[in-house]
Structures are given as C-alpha cells and as structure tokens.
C-alpha cells in the first residue's frame, strides 16, 4: 500500500494548493495591516486565480491511490476547475468595483471568495461522497458569511441567517442520504457505487440505496434552487450585496450542477429509470413557478434569483435525459448561462447605488446615458431568454434536442411554453432601458472592472452565437 506522495502528485493537486495558499496569505495580510491588505488583496487574488488556471492546464494526472480515492483528475474535473476559477476571476473584479463604493476591509472578503472557489473545486473533482460533502460545506459556509458581509445592512444579516439555517438543514439531509447509501452499498466511493447498486440482492437494500439517493438529490436540489427547495433563493439573493449575488447566481449554480453531474453522470449514469422520471417531474413546477413569479419582480437581484431558478429548471432536462450527449448539452448551457449572467451583473454593478441594489426603475433610459451598457445588458438578457440568433437559443435548442431524442416530448413542450413567459419579462427590462430618461434616475458609474467582465461576457456570447462548434467539441470529449 503506497503511503507516500511523490512530487508529481503535488503537481497534480497544485491548483488546490495555490488557491488555499493565496486565501491564507490574504487573510494574514488583512490580520497584520488593513491598509496594506486593501491594496494587495485584489491583485493577489487575481494572480492566484490566473496561476490556478495555468496549473489546471498543465497539471499531470495522478495515479497515487492516496489521492485518487478522493479526488478525480480526469478531463471533466479539470474542466469544472477551470470553469470555477474563471467565474471567481470575474466575480473578484465585480467585487472590486463594489468596494470602490463601500471602502471597508476587503481581505476577509477575498479570503472567503477563495475559500468558496476551493470548495467548488473539491465538488468538481470529487471521487467520493465525502469529498463532495466537504466541498459543498466549504462553499456553503463561506457563502453564509459572504452574504452577511455588510454588517450594517439589516437585510444582509437576515439573508445570511436564512441561508445558514436552511442550508444547514439541507446539508444534514444530504449527509443522512450519504449515510443511507453507505449503509446499502458499504462504500461512499463513486467508482464503486454503480456496481454496488447493481449487486444489491435484497429489496431492503435497494430501498435503502434509493432513499439515500433521494435525500442526496434533495440536498443538491436545495443548492441549485429547484422548486420546491428554492424558498431561500429570492430572499438571500436580494439581501446579499451585489457581487455576492453574482457569485451565488453563477458560481453556486454551476457548482450545484457540477455536483449533480459528478454524482449522476459520472458515478451513477442511468442507474434507475424512475429517478430520471422524478427529475423530469421536478423540472415542470420549477419552470412554471419561476417563470410566472419572475414577471412581477422589480428588484434586480431578486429578479435574477427567479431567473436562476428558471434556468435550473431548464438544466434539469439534460439531467433527466442522462446520456453523454446530454452532458455536453448541460455543460454548454451552463457556459452560456454563466457568461450571460456575469455580463448582466457587470452592468448592474454600474447602477448599484443603494443597499437594496438596482431596481428596474434605475435602468430606465440607460440607452440614452450609455448606449454601450444598454447594449451589453440587452444582449445578455436576450441570451438568457433564448431568443435567436444568440447563443442562448442554441443552448436551449441543444437541450430540447437531446430531450426529444430520448422521448421527453411533453417536457419540451412545457419548457417551450414557459420560454414565452421568460421572453416577456426579459424584454420588459430591455424595454425599460430604451425608454426616455428622467432626472431622478442615478447616472451609471464608470468602472473598468465591470467593463472588463462585461466586455469578456459579450465577446464570448457573440463568438458562441456565430461559431459554437469548438466549444461543443471541447465539451463533447
């Protein structure tokens, strides 16, 4: 039994080391000198994330059983790691833009951001339920604190407490599910799960296993904000400061679906047709509810909560289909969703003037004041709505295609009908931007950080709309 780690193994887990080391360095800097930390936290974070990207690209695959029992190093794991680091990069820039307006101590913020990334990376590379749980908890605890980072904001404290209480409950249920699975199969390692399930002799055992999986799904569905486990999302998104909402909307959503992918595409593909049908049944109320309630929203952060729930509903469709092509569709959809939401938050960062964040009224007449900002937000919202010729249409089309090929006709029809509703509420915001401007609406602030994120998002969306095949090939490994 190999009990030592070679040098090559350290290189394999170097991305994790880099993020962890940077997080601790930022925290130390903050502890010793707040003024020094104010100058150095953002550059240190960005440098660490850039170094992590490089490390992910060049790190070798480890075969040491000390590591591979817990962490996967395959292409999908590297893909998710890359995805999370890029999302964190964008969110760090948006946070910097936010802190120019509220100059409070930032070191702890970046520490928490880097910890969340670490947790996300653990989720994406998990080879065992316990690693998945550790990653999920690291992410969650960092987020609980991040949501309440603005200590003087009442709504922030409330959001943080709500998230913590409900998140703790969901985590407990997830852990119990893992325990039931362990009881049924005798291991929590992903590689052994499918064989273990197929070898279960007694109905008692399979009931145990299926209940465990049901609870695991419930716990993950909470994180992904799927109806009826979504109740925390609108309040928490609304109460948290805008860059944290951006990270939750994009990072946590991708993280939750990464967890779903890791458990249900890698560990247990097509293990039980009943589970696939159950996911399809979960998608329907998610789509209908989220799209109907989003119509009434005027606070942008709360609006993006419902938008996120609606997209989680769409993402459940390839999860229900559960074929390799569906995995490509899910990854492509996640990528497009991430770009579009980050672009939207980049624009919202420029009109973020008060505690409660931007409302739809603050966007009135944005086109007259800054055609560029209005065009960026309009393009991002059209992408989220799935209106051709944007990449959002291609993403939705791919999802519908894999669903149709597996026979989920009714689900596709319902999803198409709810797309009309979503088109209405996204277009309503776009219409507001193009209205005449009134003097009481605050002017958008200039921010190079938001410009970088917005520009990057737009460039990616336009590139994907015209020529998506390279990314589809990349995801189609």
């Amino acid at each position: 039994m190999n009990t030592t780690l070679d040098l090559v193994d350290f290189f394999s887990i170097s991305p994790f080391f880099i993020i962890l080391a940077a997080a601790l360095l930022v925290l130390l800097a903050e502890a010793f000198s707040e003024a020094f930390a104010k100058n150095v936290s953002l550059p240190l974070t960005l440098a660490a994330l850039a170094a992590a990207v490089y490390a992910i690209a060049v790190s070798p695959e480890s075969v040491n059983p000390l590591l591979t029992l817990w962490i996967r190093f395959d292409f999908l794991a590297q893909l998710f790691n890359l995805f999370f680091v890029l999302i964190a990069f964008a969110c760090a820039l948006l946070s910097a833009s936010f802190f120019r307006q509220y100059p409070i101590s930032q070191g702890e913020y970046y520490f928490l951001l880097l910890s969340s990334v670490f947790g996300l990376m653990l989720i994406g590379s998990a080879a065992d339920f316990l690693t998945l749980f550790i990653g999920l908890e690291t992410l969650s605890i960092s987020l609980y604190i991040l949501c309440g980072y603005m200590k003087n904001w009442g709504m922030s404290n409330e959001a943080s407490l709500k998230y913590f209480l409900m998140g703790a409950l969901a985590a407990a249920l997830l852990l119990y599910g893992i325990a039931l699975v362990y009881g049924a199969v005798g291991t929590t390692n992903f590689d052994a799960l499918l064989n273990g399930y197929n070898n279960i002799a007694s109905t008692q055992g399979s009931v145990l296993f299926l209940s465990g999986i049901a609870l695991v799904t419930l716990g993950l569905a909470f994180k992904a904000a799927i109806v009826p486990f979504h109740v925390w999302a609108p309040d928490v998104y609304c109460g948290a400061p805008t860059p944290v909402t951006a990270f939750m909307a994009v990072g946590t959503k991708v993280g939750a679906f990464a967890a779903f992918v890791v458990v249900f595409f890698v560990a247990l593909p097509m293990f039980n047709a009943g589970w696939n049908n159950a996911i399809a049944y979960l998608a329907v109320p998610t789509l209908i509810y989220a799209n109907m309630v989003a119509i009434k929203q005027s606070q942008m952060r709360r609006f993006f909560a419902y938008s996120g729930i609606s997209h989680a509903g769409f993402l459940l469709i390839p999860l229900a289909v559960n074929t390799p092509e569906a995995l490509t569709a899910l990854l492509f959809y996640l990528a497009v969703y991430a770009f579009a939401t980050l672009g939207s938050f980049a624009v919202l960062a420029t009109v973020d003037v008060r505690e409660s964040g931007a409302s739809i009224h603050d966007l009135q007449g944005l086109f007259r004041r800054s055609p560029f900002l209005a065009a960026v937000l309009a393009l991002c919202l059209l992408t989220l709505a799935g209106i051709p010729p944007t990449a959002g249409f291609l993403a939705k089309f791919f999802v519908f295609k894999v669903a149709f090929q597996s026979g989920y006709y009714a689900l596709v029809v319902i999803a198409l009908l709810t797309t009309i509703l979503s088109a209405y509420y996204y277009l309503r915001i776009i219409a507001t931007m193009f209205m005449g401007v009134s003097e009481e609406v605050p002017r958008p602030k200039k921010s190079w950080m938001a410009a970088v994120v917005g520009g990057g998002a737009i460039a990616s969306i336009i590139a994907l709309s015209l020529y998506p095949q390279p990314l589809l090939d990349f995801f189609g490994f």
Partner: protein
Amino acid sequence: MPNLMLLFTIPFLASLLVLIFPVWSGKLLQKIAITLSFIPLIILIVGHSSWIGSHIEYPWIPSLAIEFHLSIDPLTLVFLYLTAFIIPISLLASIDTVPHHPNTFYALVLLLEGLLIGFFTARDLVLFTLFWESMLLPLYFMIVLWGGKEKEKAALKFIVYMIAGSALLISAVLALYLSSANTSADSSFNFEVLAKTAESNPYAAWLAAIFLLAFCVKTPLFPFHAWLPDAYCQASTTGTILLSAILSKAGIYGILRISMEFFPTYMQMWSPILLGFAIAGVIYGAFAAWTQSDFKRLLAYSSFSHVNFVLVGVFVISQTAQSGAILQALNHGVTIAALFLVAGWLEQRISSTSIGLYHGLAKYLPQLCWVTLFFVCASVALPGTNNFVGEVIILFGLFEDNPWLAALLATSVVLSVIYMLRWMQKVYFEMPSPRHALWHDMTTKELLIAMPLIAVILWIGIYPAPLLNQIKPAAEKIVSIASLEVSE
C-alpha cells in the same frame, strides 16, 4: 453563377461598418448607409435569373446537425427582389431628418436586410427558424427607440405575440428531425429530406398546425392580427414600411415554402377553413379601415386587408392562384411601401395623422396629392397598375375553385375603393383649410424617391409577362408537390 456568400454577408458587414462609424456627421452617415443598402439590389439585378441555383452548403454545428445551407430558387428570387428594393426605400423615407442615434438606426435596418436574405434563402430547418425569429429583434428595437407615443407597449405586444405564435416551432422542428430518421439513413434538418418524410410523422397534423400558426401570426391572417394596428401606427415611417412590406411577406413565404412543401395534404384538407379566414380578413380589414379617423391606422388595416387577399390566393391549390399569390405578394409590398411613404410625407407636413384635421390640401400640395392618388389607385387595383394583375389572377384561381366566394371577394374591391377615396376626399379635396407655413409641396428629392415605385407599379401593371414567367416555375413546383401527395 453569382456569389451567394457575397449577397448574404454584405448587409451584415455594412451594418457593422455603420455601427462603428464615428458620428461626426449624421448626414454623411445617412448617405453612406443608403448607398450600402443599394448594393444587394444592384448585384441582384446584375445577375437576375442567373442567381437561380446558386447555393452555399457548409456544416455549421455538426453536434446539432445544423448545416449552413442557403440556396436560391425562383420563389426565393421574387422575395429577394422585394427585400432588396424595399430596404433602400425605407431608408430613403427618413431622409429629411437624421434620426437620433443614427448609427444604431441604420445598423439595425441593414442587419434586418441581412437576416431577411438569410431567411429567404435558408434550406436547413433550424437555420430557417433562427432567421425567422431573429427578424423580430431589429424591428422590436426600431419600434421601441424611434416610435410614437405608445411605442413601448406596442413593441412589447408585437414581439411577445410573435414569439408566442412561434413558441412551439422548435418542438415541431425537432419532431420532423426525428421522423426523418425513419426513411433516410441519417436524420437531418435539410429541406429536401424533410419534405419527403414530414407527413409520415404520426403527429403530422399537429406539426402542420404549429407551423401554420407561426406563419399566420406574422402575416397576419385574420384573427391573429391584434398586434397589427398598434405596431404599425407606433413605428416610425421606416419601421412601418419594413413591417408592412417585408415582414408580412416573410409569413407568406413561410406558408409557401414549408406548409405547402412539407404538408400538402393537410393544406388541402384545411383549405376551406383557411379560405374562410382569409376572406373574412379581407372584408373585416376593409370595414375597419372605413371607420378609421387616423390615416396611418387606416393604411394599417388596408395592408391587413390586402395581405389576406394574397392569402386567399395562397390557400387555393391551383397554379393560377399560386402564381397570383406570389405576384400579389410582391405587388402588395411595393404598393404598401409607397402608401406609407406618402402618408409619412403628409404626416411630416400636417404634424398629425388624423383625417379631417385639415381639408383641401390639394390646393397647397398638388404634387403630393397626385402621387398619393396614383398610389391609392394602385392599391385599389385600377387596371394598368400592378395590384390589378395580381388580384385578377387570384380571382381567376378562386373562381375555378368556388365561384360564389370569388364573387364575394370581388365585391371587397369596392370596399377598398370606398375607404381609400374617403381618405383622399377628406384630406385633399373638399373646402381648403387656411394655409400653414409648413405646407410645402413635394421636394425634388421626394419626387425622385417616388419615381421608382411609380415605375415598378406601372411596369408590372402594363407588362407583367416577364415577371409571371419567372414566377411560373415556383407555382408549378408547389402544385406538383400537392398533386403528387394526393395521387399517392
């Protein structure tokens, strides 16, 4: 064979160029944009019928089996001529004042031109659907940015109605894709493959209905026209010309291309009901136009009425009626663009669109009056004008099918005369109002813009044979597909 890639990409490049052009002179930008918009028309005319058969075929997104497949056949060529002709006219309609944010305005119109060329030439069903839905975006932004008082509401109603109409289109496209795997080796979105296998799908009736609904909402067929009056009235002159002259033809082209080729048996089965709706639309539009006190709304209902006339021709499956419908689609586009053009000039002068505000303007604006009267006569199908040829052929086609309906439809021509002449009389004739300073007659520029429209109307009205010969193969193809399906 002329280069189709050139025709397709030039409007997009022009749009990009206009968008990034530094706006230190709106007038200069206007001239550049209008010049660029003429290029597709010039290359179409230079190539004329040698365009038929040119095609592009690349695999665009192999993972989704979507090909970038464009090609031109006689039916497509007619609609390409219309698009290439109307877009410069619509830009020239706004030549007197430079619109605010001119970069965006001209870029959107040129983008629309590119999307329309892509739509009319697309031969891959997903590409077709992509262009079909993308067309709405430039028009939505044109209404919302440069429209009238209630532009936001009208624009939102317009686009949500359209998206709702084509909501289930994706599911129908995917269903056809799956059923094409039954007969040929691979499933595909290619038109030729799908045309053979479409009716073998177990849900073919539903799919035919879904496609037909999407096309009928855009045209619009009665009773799916609720979005029409507000959208037409609230858009600026350019927007209204684009909506009425081209967008409605996109719906008609869709019916001819997809419903007729993919689902001929269902179209024949439903032909009586659809004919009923279309004729009801003609008569309803005419009566609604008669009661209007706003001439832009009057022209909107008139456009609706005449488009339903074209649909009557589309829904009768005979070669005469189909040729008439295709010709009349072209004619209607030209005529309604002309009518909205002169209405826009009138609106500029009297600063209002209400009938009866000022009378007897023929005294002060004689040239505008005569040009308007000419276009009005074209619209009511005076013999010698293009609409006469188109409508007569449609009536012949309908008469062969059902003489009583043809008689009913013919009486609707009388209605169109009534509401149009009522407008002319109330605004231009009767006792003249006292003169205002703004009332200057047509400028040379405006006369020059009106000339090509007058020329086309007279040319098609007096000598339609060449155009009819070009349309004949398209009509023959549609009818032969229909009779093939019936005989099987």
